[in-house]
């Protein structure tokens, strides 16, 4: 057994133990903390699988933003979660265990019988990489080969945000979403919220920019920028804007709109929807990414913040 395999086995056991604990622990808040830890361990698995683009997304999104979202919800629901003591009976639990074990066994069978050699689109992706002008094949897939998926993904994020907003009480429509803050303006959180964002913003923009040629990209960069914004708001140093602001709404739709316009312009300039004319692929990809960036930063941060809860001060 090689050292690398020993590390992998240790990591797999650790992640399974963390998942089991997250499911089994009584206290919901503890479960949320377990889930955040689980997300960070999963990031290490992505690194071990040599998929750094996914690792960055998982660290920023799976562990980071989802964690912030769930911690906020668990804190608000703490009272009601604690009162739920009713557990399903032994029969239900046994049946659930049997069902879960069956699913796991079936999937394990599939994993052990995957075709060898594995089918891959890597050579096809590499063949045309030069024509896209980007060096990172994952970015090429996201913004050239399968850019329709990425457009729909950005729209899904927006639709989810509209869904969250539509859950506001009628009297708060158009108002400000609010994060729960108990921050002391001289406390350590406020200190971090002043020190960290300058570094975080540079890291976020760097990860966005480097994504063209190396692991990184707009989703990972946007998540980091959104996290920095939320940190400043969570520390009570700034407030979220009312959702009725025109600039906010323009920035939210600008990204997908630019994407759609460039996509359909391909019909005229390159003969197909979402095709780029020769030699213009890189600048057009860059234009789409730059337009999508503010949309994603705002949408991701506002998804964590939730529905509007108060009217802006007049």
């Amino acid at each position, binding site marked *: 057994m090689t050292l690398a*395999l020993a590390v992998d*086995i240790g990591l*797999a056991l650790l*992640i399974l133990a963390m998942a089991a604990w*997250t*499911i089994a622990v009584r206290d*919901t808040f503890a*479960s949320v903390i377990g*889930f955040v830890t*689980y997300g960070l361990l*999963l990031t290490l*698995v992505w690194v071990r*699988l*040599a*998929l750094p*683009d*996914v690792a960055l*997304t*998982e660290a920023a*999104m*799976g562990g980071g933003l989802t964690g912030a*979202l*769930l911690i906020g*919800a*668990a804190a*608000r*629901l703490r009272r*009601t*979660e604690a009162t*739920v003591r009713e557990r399903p009976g032994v029969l*239900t639990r046994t049946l*659930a265990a049997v*069902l*879960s074990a069956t699913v796991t*066994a079936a*999937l*394990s069978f599939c*994993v*052990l019988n*995957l075709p060898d050699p*594995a089918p*891959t*689109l*890597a*050579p096809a*992706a*590499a063949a045309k990489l030069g024509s896209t002008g980007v060096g990172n094949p*994952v970015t090429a*897939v*996201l913004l050239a080969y*399968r850019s329709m998926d990425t457009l729909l*993904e950005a729209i899904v*994020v927006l639709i*989810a945000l509209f869904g969250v907003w539509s*859950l506001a009480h009628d009297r708060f429509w158009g108002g400000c979403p609010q994060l729960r803050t108990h921050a002391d303006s001289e406390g350590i959180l406020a200190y971090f919220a002043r020190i960290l964002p300058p570094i975080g913003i540079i890291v976020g923009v760097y990860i966005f920019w480097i994504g063209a040629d190396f692991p990184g*990209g707009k*989703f990972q960069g946007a998540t980091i920028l959104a996290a920095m914004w939320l940190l400043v708001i969570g520390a009570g140093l700034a407030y979220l804007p009312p959702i009725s602001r025109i600039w906010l709404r323009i920035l939210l739709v600008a990204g997908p709109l630019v994407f759609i316009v460039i996509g359909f312009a391909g019909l005229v300039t390159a003969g197909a929807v979402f095709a780029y004319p020769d030699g213009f692929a890189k600048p057009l990809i860059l234009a789409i990414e730059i337009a999508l960036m503010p949309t994603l930063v705002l949408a991701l941060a506002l*998804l964590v913040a*939730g*529905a509007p809860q108060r009217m802006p001060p007049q």
Partner: protein
Amino acid sequence: MNGPTLFGLCAAALIGFGLYGLIVNPQPLRKIIGFNIIGSGVFLLFGTIARRGAAVGMGGDPVPQALLITGIVVAFSATALAVALLLRLFDEGGVVTLASEASPTEAKADPPDA
């Protein structure tokens, strides 16, 4: 046994754990967490398939990798919507439960269709 196969089996187990948590835990927030564990198991399964497709100097097949990134972002959006629904339910009733029997006050406010 190599790395991808090991993590593939790990993913299968995670999907099982998540499914069990989704069924057994009574609190809605715990069900959202269980659902997310199922989701991450599916992502990991897909990730091992991406890793197996490593070729021409790439660490993995880039197409499943791109779909994974898309999937993680969509999963986050869906989770945010689910949490918002849950919090609104909490605002309405002060109690969030999927318990089988309704409390007396709830039963009075919303009589069952006979």
